[in-house]
């Protein structure tokens, strides 16, 4: 596709099957403590 560059190689939908183990980091244990950010966290169950 010459006019479209897709930066993602998987969809959120694909994580429904394998996700939900809960082993990932709690969002407020990182650097925030005053907001909520989960998009920057990594999956521990790849």
């Amino acid at each position, binding site marked *: 596709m010459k006019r479209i560059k897709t930066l993602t190689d998987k969809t959120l*939908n694909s994580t429904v099957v394998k996700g939900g183990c809960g082993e990932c980091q709690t969002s407020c244990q990182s650097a925030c403590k005053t907001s909520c950010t989960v998009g920057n966290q990594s999956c521990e169950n790849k």
Partner: protein
Amino acid sequence: MVYQYINNGYYIVLDVCSGSVHVVDELVYDMIALFEKKDRKAIASAIKEKYGDKYSEFDIYEAYSDIEELKESGQLFTEDVYKDVIVDFKKRKTVVKALCLHIAHDCNLACKYCFADEGEYHGQKRELMSLEVGKKAIDFLIENSGSRVNLEVDFFGGEPLMNFEVVKEIVAYGRSKEKEFNKNFRFTLTTNGVLLDDDVIEFCNKEISNVVLSLDGRKCIHDLMRPTRNGKGSYDVIVPKFKNFVEKRGDKSYYVRGTFTRNNTDFSNDFKEMADLGFKEISIEPVVAAPSEDYSIREEDLPKIFEEYDKLALDIIERYKKKKPVTFFHYMIDLNGGPCVYKRLSGCGSGTEYLAVTPQGELYPCHQFVGIDGFKLGTVFDGIENTDVVNEFKLCNVYAKEKCKDCFARFYCSGGCAANSYLYSGGILDTYDIGCKMQQKRVECAIMIKAALADLEEECRDEES
């Protein structure tokens, strides 16, 4: 739902429900905006009308086909199907996997914006956590964590290094239990740096997986809001200590974390200052403060704050170009290996997976609720007793919040901070609108940076070949 925006010359299309991110040209950008409203012929006419002969029939045909292909492959115009997939939030069984230990309700600084009231947390007395309470908290965590292997314990305050001996002993106690219970403790610590010496550094490098160092940026900004108890600035005391810490940290994680207020809405300069000091992992957060405080962020500050987020994003790209990358916490976004949709929907886990423990051993939904009437959940000695409040927090998720339903950023903030919502609206299932707008802007910038870095990588590959 599709969200489109232009930033730094990039035409970005985010397919919200699949999480797919597409960087497109102006033709595709405009056609995507019309795709669900008009048929193919009407879209072609609209493009002709806007651009004249700039794009041929073939260009339009090709672009349309590409959009159709993305739609068919589930990367564009996808529906939000997760509501039906995710289990009933009320019935979900939760385990505790993280504790914020308020190891010291006391502080050696007197920061003006402190939500912890310098350790007093809404009238609680100044005191340090005993080893007995600390050990009991570790036991409570192990007992209530089910089959979760990775458990997190954050040493928080006040200033946790005012009770450093107990920190060390709690860590040793936790480690002594790991094998027996098949647990892996990840300890973190947040410090203002005043008591940071080589002994602390050595301990942190061995045992603490992430250390958060509080620094607001430029000396004048830092000293204005973070004075010592006798009113002097703390910048000159802590910056050499932080530099020493980072030098010895190796590749272990840390964050130099600042707070910006109405006094420094030009906070891209504070980021620059911190990056120029040599810090590589930086976070700057908007202050959480009652609207009545003169330093609180107001709606009218937002245009300036958005400009600053844009400047900060460009600064980050420049540093990448110079091969001296710096990480900004809120611009880290993992487009391919990020969290699963369950995590993205279920919020931060406060009140369920994540609890705060006071020096007396009382449990609260998170560090920001400590000392607020009605939010005490129980104690580490007797366990959770106030199940009504826990059940209320269990319901905290993206779909429970009316304002999140149509927000493009909902899978990046998972519904936002319950404490911010409570502070601004009186309930935990609402939103803090100013915070939401800043979060949306940060997500936009984070994705734009990914687009710019993809270009840089491509340029590097071209140069190499």
